[in-house]
């Protein structure tokens, strides 16, 4: 078993990792083969990042330092892509275009 890739990112979206951002976040996570998990603290608990039910249950408000970790194929890419999505505020700035 390879070691996990891990990163943290600050949630700046006004109401946190809520309904719309969670849809985008889990959709993106599912495009990677790696196991991806999120947590609100370095020591967990960890939630499956591909399950919107679990991501929503984490109830991460704005200002949360989100921990993201991945294991397996494309783990690095998965973490990078998800961190980038959170940094871009889930693309909810001027452009509200629906994702395909």
């Amino acid at each position, binding site marked *: 078993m390879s070691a996990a890739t891990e990163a943290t990112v*600050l949630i*700046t979206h*006004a*109401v*946190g990792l*809520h*309904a*719309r951002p*969670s*849809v985008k976040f*889990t*959709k993106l996570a599912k495009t990677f083969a790696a196991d991806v998990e999120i947590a609100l603290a370095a020591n967990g608990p960890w939630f*499956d990042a591909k*399950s*919107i*039910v*679990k991501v*929503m*249950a984490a*109830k991460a*408000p*704005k*200002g*949360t330092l989100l921990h993201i970790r991945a294991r397996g194929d494309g783990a690095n890419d998965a973490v990078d892509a998800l961190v980038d999505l959170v940094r871009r505020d889930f693309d909810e*700035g001027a452009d*509200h275009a*629906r994702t395909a």
Partner: protein
Amino acid sequence: MLVPLRLQGISASAGYAEGPLFDLDRPPAVYASKATAAEEKASLEAAIGKALKRLAAMVEAADRDAASILEFHIAMLEDDTLSEPAFASIVSGQTADTAWREALNGEIAGYEASDQDYFRARAADLRDIRDQVLRALTEDEDRAAPSGAILFGEDIAPTRFLETDWTNGGGIALQAGSTASHVAMLARSRGVPMVVGLRQLEANLAGLALLDAEHGSIVLAPSPAEVVSFRQLSSSFTTRQGKARTFLARPAVTKTGTAVRVQVNIAGPSDVDAIDIATCDGVGLMRTEFLFGKTLPDEETQYHAYRKVLEWAGDKPVTIRTVDAGGDKPVPGFTVEEGNPFLGLRGIRLSLARLDIFRVQIRALLRAAPHGNLKVMFPMIAMAEEYECAAALFAEEQAALAARGVTRQMPPLGIMVEVPSVAIAPEAFANVAFFSIGSNDLTQYVMAAARDNAAVAHLNSVRHPAVLRLIGSVVAFGRDNGIPVSLCGDAGGDPASIPSLLEAGLRDLSVAPAQLAMAKAAISDISV
């Protein structure tokens, strides 16, 4: 014969609706249980599939806001994690409908327990998802409300809102509900009248009702005279609304040519995305409680939030209020449990008791100040010592930042006038940079009527002579001493209260963004 009954709630979306009541909580049809667990499982799978298909069809017809809510429902329903517990209890002998209901109720309870409004409001989405599948299980297709009906019940599902035909009017009246729910947002954007918090609304009502979602009330079994006066209010609202749109882009001026500044109240930095800065004179109140959720915000988070609004406003003023936690706004890890929180450790009292937290906010404000036209005000000031203490903390942090070579600027420091002691004896505050009258709290303290208690709502009026006299004397004191006075309570955006406020001498109001046009229109009708 029923006697007319008027119930008071909270407006979630302004407007008027007259129509038959339609009970949202009618008992659904009964589920026919199956012979084997395998059949129950197949029946639940089919129902989930059917619900997903219906949601997909609704997405096709929905606008962007509505579609994003539906896509959230679809994503939740497609996630096996949601249905796993239900399928597990089917295996151990439960029927599909009970298994699903119990599984979802568990999930809903988790959301209801959240201390954040936003996540708590998602419980309504989960109930919607639950009921979509239960409906598919029971094949209850006969659930359309008559056109123009007033839908009433405990709460309403977003999909229910979306599949309702609102082209012939109609409205929503809820016992519970929240002004932060998805449905409330949809109702505001579509102009569907909606009132929440009608706690005394009973089940099994029928007949004609009048929904006044401008003032947050509903009249059941109205008399002919009430129908007549309701229609007058309704048509005046429509006229005002149409007229108001033409006022939005112009500066506010009274009939006799007196200029009135109209600023906006915002609750967080994302609010400004939907406001054109050209339509207002700045931000009269930026609340900072939004930052204080489950975790206390760090300096960087606060700095970026303040800076965003300052940059958006350009050279127009942005008045940021230091955190006003306590009272009806508890914050875990910050506020304290009290028997009478409105009269307890809240606003500046709490900030001065928790200097570790207050100093972080002060530094973030000082650092944000160079990025725009910042003003800072303190809530719940009762004595001059509190203001002096807060101002001294600003000076200390300013000096510390300067010593470290950090870019910063001292903003003008003002106070909220909401505790009667300040309004009665303002002379103790002759050295503050500005006064901002918090009419909600000032009114509740002068009238001794809690603003969240519907039973004493009739006492809670800013237009009571006692409240207006205090406002007038604060304005006069400000004028004589060169201290600008504005007002940032709900009354500032209420067309019915604006004439009294201008007569009391106010020329600077700060209102909710949705009330901007109506407030400007109301001002144009006044001769002062």
